[in-house]
């Protein structure tokens, strides 16, 4: 991972990030010396054992938690500023759709906060729902959709703001494997249409290899970035990619890295 590049060309950059949580029960060092960067337009996955702090790192990028030390930048800007400039969007593991709004109105939510006019909001929301393939479900209520479709609505809502960076925290973690594979393909085809930099957190090594241009491995708590692998499989990624022998090589290499990383207990 080239860290010597100037900040502006990096969609995401984290340098020597540490995070300590203070509590009455004792302090927890969640992250230590995390180094992570992604060039604009790249798809970067973050994998690691449970509890290693991947979600914490994502939330630091999203300006939801402040880092204890280190630098965090989005598009070369400080994350607080990036948030105000609406440079990034987040997709969490559960869709978090508002049950009193239909699909279209749910997708309109960020635009309402941004102050867009009603006609413009509806038009943009309709366009994005077409891109993700949910046009015929505009008037449906969230509870009428399956889990996978709800997550697609959440993705549409994240993309409607036209962010340059997308932060995704195990978005398909709650789905079954078949749906997850299908969602991966759809995510790839949707992503190709935008030029978003993506930070994708997952537990699944095959998912990480399939989707990303780079995979970063984190150790067990305190989370440290211990390895980064460049996945030079061609884009667009399709079902055939999964049968490519190099796909299996990458998966195996990462599995070894992850096994080592899981054993490293922190200070």
């Amino acid at each position, binding site marked *: 991972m080239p860290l010597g590049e100037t900040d502006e060309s990096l969609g995401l950059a984290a340098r020597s990030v540490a995070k300590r949580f203070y509590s009455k029960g004792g302090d927890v060092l969640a992250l230590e010396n995390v180094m992570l960067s992604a060039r604009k337009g790249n798809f970067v996955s973050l994998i690691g054992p449970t509890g290693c702090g991947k979600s914490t790192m994502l939330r630091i990028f*999203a300006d939801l938690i402040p880092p204890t030390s280190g630098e965090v930048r989005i598009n070369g800007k400080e994350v607080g500023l990036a*948030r105000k400039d*609406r440079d990034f969007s987040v997709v969490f593991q559960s869709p978090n759709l*508002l049950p009193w709004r239909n699909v279209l109105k749910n997708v309109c939510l*960020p635009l*309402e*906060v941004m102050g867009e006019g009603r006609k413009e909001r509806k038009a943009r929301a309709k366009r994005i729902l077409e891109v993700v393939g949910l046009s015929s479900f505009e008037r449906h209520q969230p*509870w009428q959709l399956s889990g996978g479709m709800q997550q697609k609505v959440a993705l549409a809502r994240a993309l409607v703001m036209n962010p340059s960076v997308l932060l995704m925290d195990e978005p398909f973690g709650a789905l079954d494997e078949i749906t997850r594979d299908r969602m991966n393909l759809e995510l790839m085809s949707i992503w190709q249409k935008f030029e978003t930099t993506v930070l994708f957190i997952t537990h699944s090594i095959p998912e990480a290899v399939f989707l990303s241009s780079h995979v970063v491995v984190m150790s067990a708590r305190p989370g440290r970035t211990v390895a980064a692998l460049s996945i030079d499989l061609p884009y667009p990624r399709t079902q055939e990619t999964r049968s490519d022998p190099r796909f299996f090589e990458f998966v195996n290499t990462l599995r070894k890295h992850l096994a080592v990383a899981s054993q490293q207990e922190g200070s």
Partner: protein
Amino acid sequence: MARLRVALSRDSSSVDHRNRWILRAIGAGARRVVTVIGLLLLIPAGWELIKFATGASNTTMPHVSDIVAHLRTTTSHGNTFAGFLFENAYVTFKASAVGLAIGAVTGLTTGVLIVRSRLVGKGLLPLVVASQTVPIVAIAPALVLWLGTSWTTKVVIAGYLTYFPLTIATARGIQAVSNDSLALMRTYSATRREVLLKIQLPAAMPMIFVGLETAAAFSVIGTIVGEMPVGSPKGLGLVILTTWQYYNFQPEALYGAALAACALGGLMVGFVRVLGRVTLKDRRMGAVL
């Protein structure tokens, strides 16, 4: 030809399906009405049974038929007793509706304030709880002394009883919002007002309506209690007080007034419930949030 037949059969089966659904819905509604009427008839049946079993006199427990008959008698005002009850019930209704509205608005505001600022919450909540532990029958006479026997007193008492269930309902409803939803609003750089109006209050609506149903019943009680102490010019509280005084001559009148009070309470709660169902029609709360 085969295609036409298939098309026709599909059409008729969907019409069939719809008709069956309509019949089922009518059946369900009819069944509900019959059940309610049946249960309501159990009350006079039970009444007569208890009267028979305990051998209560006609003064202590008049026959149901006597109570109903008394509703038809003419009063000194020229209308039937039932009509007289209706007039007074209407007066009580107006006051309790206003009391409910005031209590609802105050309760909602207090609930929002409690959740917004932890400091304010810690200070307000014990006060709110303490205010409800003083029995209303102790406060009502004091309020009458301060504010007189005007309409305002009744409304204040009704509001006093309704604002607590609404404060708690609002606060609970808002607290149930998931952290991820709040996190998402932060990433949109939403203002606190936007979070309140777009996420927290709509999310709290089901709980608020639950509190509103309880409050509707309390507002009727509060108004009637407020009408009693010295006696306001009109209202069910006054009627109950007066018929109570003449109990030995005409017990049927008191029971008639009590029935009217029950009916009014039932109607208020029923109205709020229907309002809630209409407002919340598209929802199904659950794991989505």
